């Protein structure tokens, strides 16, 4: 009990200091980054959604490694859950997977809608909220619904992982294409004065590729969990 009280006291110190530093922040509050991006973001990148502008252009380097983290986690989860001995088709006597009929029907109804919404979010990532990562996650959720409809669905994990890796390499190549076309690394491969519509080609292309990659990655992670020990 005393331990807990001391802990609360320690956290209280942190809170107090944070409280004071908030006063400082309100005084110092520096909007340089925000003003800069608001003023030049659209002209620089051709993306009306400034978040996408940052993710796919100003800080593309971060996004590449963000996709890389997913890639590593997928490989890691698969590696940890993989078994040396073959027990793929182990039969479990007491396993009962029975989804209610209502649920199955509902899932069948929702599945195409979610898939379409995911693609919408990906493709319009540069003009409305959304983008590759968000849309990819929505598509992955849609695919997961398939498991409700058919619990014994067989997925070829190895193939998905291979496609994911190839997609990652493709993303890296598309991102570095700008080095050839305009002498700058990891940015839009169209020249900086190109019209926003032209620049949008690059944004949509990269969003679609990232979306696919994220969807496949999350799908693989989920499948690895579902098949774990089976």
């Amino acid at each position, binding site marked *: 009990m005393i*331990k807990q009280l001391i*802990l609360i006291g*320690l*956290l209280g*110190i*942190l809170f107090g*200091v*944070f409280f*004071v*530093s*908030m*006063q*400082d*922040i309100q005084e*110092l*509050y*520096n*909007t*340089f*980054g*925000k003003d*800069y*991006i608001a003023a030049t973001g659209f002209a*620089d990148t051709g993306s009306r959604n400034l978040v996408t502008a940052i993710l796919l*252009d*100003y*800080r*593309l*380097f*971060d996004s590449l*490694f*963000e996709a*890389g*983290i997913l890639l*590593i*986690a997928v*490989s*890691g989860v698969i*590696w*940890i859950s993989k078994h040396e001995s073959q027990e793929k088709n182990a039969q479990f006597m007491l396993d009962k997977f029975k989804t209610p009929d209502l649920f199955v029907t509902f899932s069948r109804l929702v599945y195409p809608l979610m898939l379409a919404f995911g693609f919408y979010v990906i493709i319009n990532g540069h003009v409305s909220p959304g983008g590759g990562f968000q849309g990819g996650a929505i598509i992955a959720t849609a695919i997961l619904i398939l498991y409700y409809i058919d619990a014994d669905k067989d997925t070829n994990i190895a193939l998905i992982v*291979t496609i994911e*890796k*190839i997609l*990652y*390499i493709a993303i*890296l190549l598309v991102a570095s294409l*700008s*080095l050839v076309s305009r002498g*700058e*690394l*990891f*940015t839009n491969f169209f020249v900086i004065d190109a019209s926003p519509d032209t620049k949008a080609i690059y944004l949509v292309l990269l969003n679609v590729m990232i979306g696919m990659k994220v969807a496949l990655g999350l799908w693989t992670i989920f499948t690895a969990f579902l098949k774990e020990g089976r």
Partner: protein
Amino acid sequence: MMLYVPIALIFIPVFSALIIYLIKAQSIRYLAFVAQIAMTVLAILYYEAYTGQFADTFFVIGGWHERVGISLINDELSLSFVFLSLFIWWMVLIYTFNTGQNHRTFLFFLMFLQGVFLGLLQTNDLFNMFVFLELMTILVAILVVFKKAGDSFRAGIYYLLLNISGVMMFLIGIILIYFTFGTINVNSVQTVIAAGELVSGDEVALRFAYVLLMAGISVKAALFPVHSWLPKAHGVAMSAISGLLSGLVVKGGLYLFLRVNQMFAGANIDYALFFYIIGALTAVIGVMFALTQKDMKQVLAYHTISQVGIVMMGLSHYDPQTVYGGLLHIFNHALFKSLLFLGAGVIIKAYKTKKIKEIRGVMRTMPVVSIFMIIGMLSITGAPFFNGFISKSIIKYGIQDSGIKYWILFIVNIGTATSFIKMAQVFFGPKPMTIRLRSLEQRIALMTLAFACVVLGNFYIPISTGFFGVDVSHVSVFQWEAFFDYAVALIIGFCFYKLVIEKDPLTVRKIREFNLSFEMSNYLFVLYVAVMTVYFVLL
């Protein structure tokens, strides 16, 4: 064109890792060596062209405004770390060349980790640093559980969760920095703080940000209250991985310590005393636990903690000579600790046990390996003519004026000597069996590391002046005090071992069986952050 070399150093290993994963042929693993050669050549060319000019090494990705885009920067510090990591990765790649069936997956994670680590060294952006730290944490956790047996799972999850909570503190620090300066570019922040116009350096927000960044870094560097993940993770991982982690990846935290202190240079934050105390505690606690262990790898892992403490004792000074001593000890420790872990791996593989008591007669079964191991042991205990001696002496000269500081270092030295006297027993005794593991690659790796230890120990003056421009000619090997000190440490250590440790009294057993639970580690972490807050912000 030289500007793109840092990018190439990050992406060559990442790319080769992906290709190694994709192509299902055993011969693809040679690609790792091709990539390694390419990187080494590029790094050397880059160093040849390196002038120390800011404009030549500062590179904004995408050509955006430097305060908006992500930038990479190189200086002597980061370049020396780049060469060190290339060297250690060479050794680990050579060492693991013919071991393990799942070589491709292993190489995939290993090469990716190299790219990430090189990125962490060269980045000039705080959030980018955070991304690399997270990626490093995940990769190391996967590598720790790579063999998927025994206690590796519990070590992996302990490591993962504790480090993630540390990195989260780091992220909160980034938040405060961003809203104070409007940028997360390390260099810009440094300039603004040094100019002292926008901020005076006494703001609570700034100091709190410093505390939070340091909290995250301390977890990564395994400083005293948050060190408990290290022996667990490094003690159970495969030996090659342990060598890599202990030798290099832990130093990532110390590197960030230097970088962040550089960033806050204008803010008048008096960090020296606090981190000296933390370093001393880390060193003493590490050596205390190492003395009681019976498991070979646990002993080495606890010694990593104590050596990190010694490095910290050097780094936490304003005097550039002493800081250089700490820096040099990072390099020396990287060399001899990888050597010791890799050598221990060979021995453990041959004897099929990790217990020091059950291993005897290594000198007869594996004479070559044991010579290299002895070189490593002499280095870590600080024997003259070996590299550990040089950096320890520089640190010793820096803290000579203060009696307490000197004695702490001496006590740590005695502890180190004692536990390696204990470990040296494995060399003697009868030859138990006729095992002869003939692995040329492993011997080449061990030999190169041992050779590097000896070279650094004897030609330290030209190396220091050539690479860092630091004059260390006041450290001389041919001084009777040096031999005397070492002999005294060895003798006291031997007596201490014979009189106390060998009898295995109750206290020693208690310390050995002491286990810091996960919630207690987090509790100490919160305590540590609170103490730092009180020290740096309120006092």
